């Protein structure tokens, strides 16, 4: 009888595994794959693909709305339109510390955050406070209609003024 001659495979040997061990491994493996898939699926489900949020591009109106050497905050869009002698630029009004809306103090000539006391000058440069970074300059351009346009999602590294 050939079965008797054949050596019995040991379930402990590294190469061989018993039928039960094989199915346990298969089962655990498929549950692990399913768990990974579920995690990926959940992550995708929880990340919205379409956001019904206001557009990052803001129409700030005609340049002559802004007095010379003025800093104007629009609280709805959280931007400052700053007019200097040479031209215009846009500054984010969102504090770089924890996202509060800053305010311009005309009597002191500085931008201050009400939450944790950060202070910036009119160029957005940090004067003091917990804020780690200056207020970013935002891309600004003139539309075909002659309106000042600001892209809030687009911070510019090199400072440029819009001259009208």
């Amino acid at each position, binding site marked *: 009888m050939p079965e008797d001659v054949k050596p019995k495979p040991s379930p402990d040997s590294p190469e061989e595994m018993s039928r039960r061990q094989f199915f346990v491994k298969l089962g655990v493996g498929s549950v692990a794959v399913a768990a990974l898939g579920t995690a990926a699926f959940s992550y995708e489900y*929880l*990340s*919205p693909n379409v*956001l019904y*949020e206001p557009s990052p591009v803001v129409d700030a109106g005609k340049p002559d709305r802004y007095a010379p050497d003025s800093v104007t905050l629009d609280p709805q869009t959280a931007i400052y339109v700053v007019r200097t002698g040479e031209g215009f630029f846009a500054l984010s009004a969102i504090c770089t*510390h*924890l*996202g509060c809306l800053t305010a311009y103090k005309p009597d002191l000539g500085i931008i201050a955050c009400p*939450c944790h006391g950060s202070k910036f000058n009119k160029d957005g440069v940090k004067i003091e406070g917990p804020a780690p970074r200056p207020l970013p300059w935002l891309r600004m351009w003139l539309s075909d209609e002659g309106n000042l346009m600001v892209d809030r999602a687009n911070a510019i590294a090199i400072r440029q003024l819009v001259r009208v």
Partner: protein
Amino acid sequence: MANTLDQLVDQVRENRIWRSIFRSGTGESNLHKSLFVQQNVFLHLFSIKARKRTLEFSATWYLGALTFGTFMILVITGVLLMLYYHPSVPQAYADMKDLQYVVSSGVFLRNLHRWSAHAMVFLVFAHMFKVFYRGAYRTPREFNWIIGVVLLLVTLLLSYTGYLLPWDQLAFWAVTVGSNIASAVPLMGAKIRFLMLGGTAVNANALLRFYVLHCVILPLAAILFIAVHFWRIRKDGGIYAGDHSSEGSNQ
């Protein structure tokens, strides 16, 4: 009169319907008493017997039980508040104001919910300190301490998610600041904030997510861990009564 009342109570307790619900039946024996605890789905989380010392005020100041009491108040008042509250912008703020000024007893329920929430956070910390300074977290109760830390986190998250729901200035800026703190996590901070708010700003999605977390997910997590927490008290040998060396002198 007292006799007939006792007889009536006994009659009810011997009744077939009553016996089908409470199977331990009447009787004053220890067996009956322990069966009564064992055979009740809620009571069976607790020990059948307790040391007298552990039931004294000085042992625990009842801080755990009081925390659970505030949690029950929060569940009941919270469910009632849900009947008038829409988690949408800007309706949420108007509903909160309606609860304060228009709905009968609305201001009572809202304030009860609010004050109980503050009390629960305070009591959870007090309970934790009491357990810590008595050394009640030591072997074999380490795991229940960990469950307690999870419950502390769930309590704080409940408090934080509930903070946004009135949709007033305080809520809006508190959650703006809080979600920016979450975005300080290395590498995945921005992703965490995006998932938390369901967008890039505190808006309608954020309000809805916080509402679902506050009213469904976190309370269910709390109930689950509270059940394990209570059951572990029994499994770890009852409420901590003090050192074994001093136990003799206490009794």
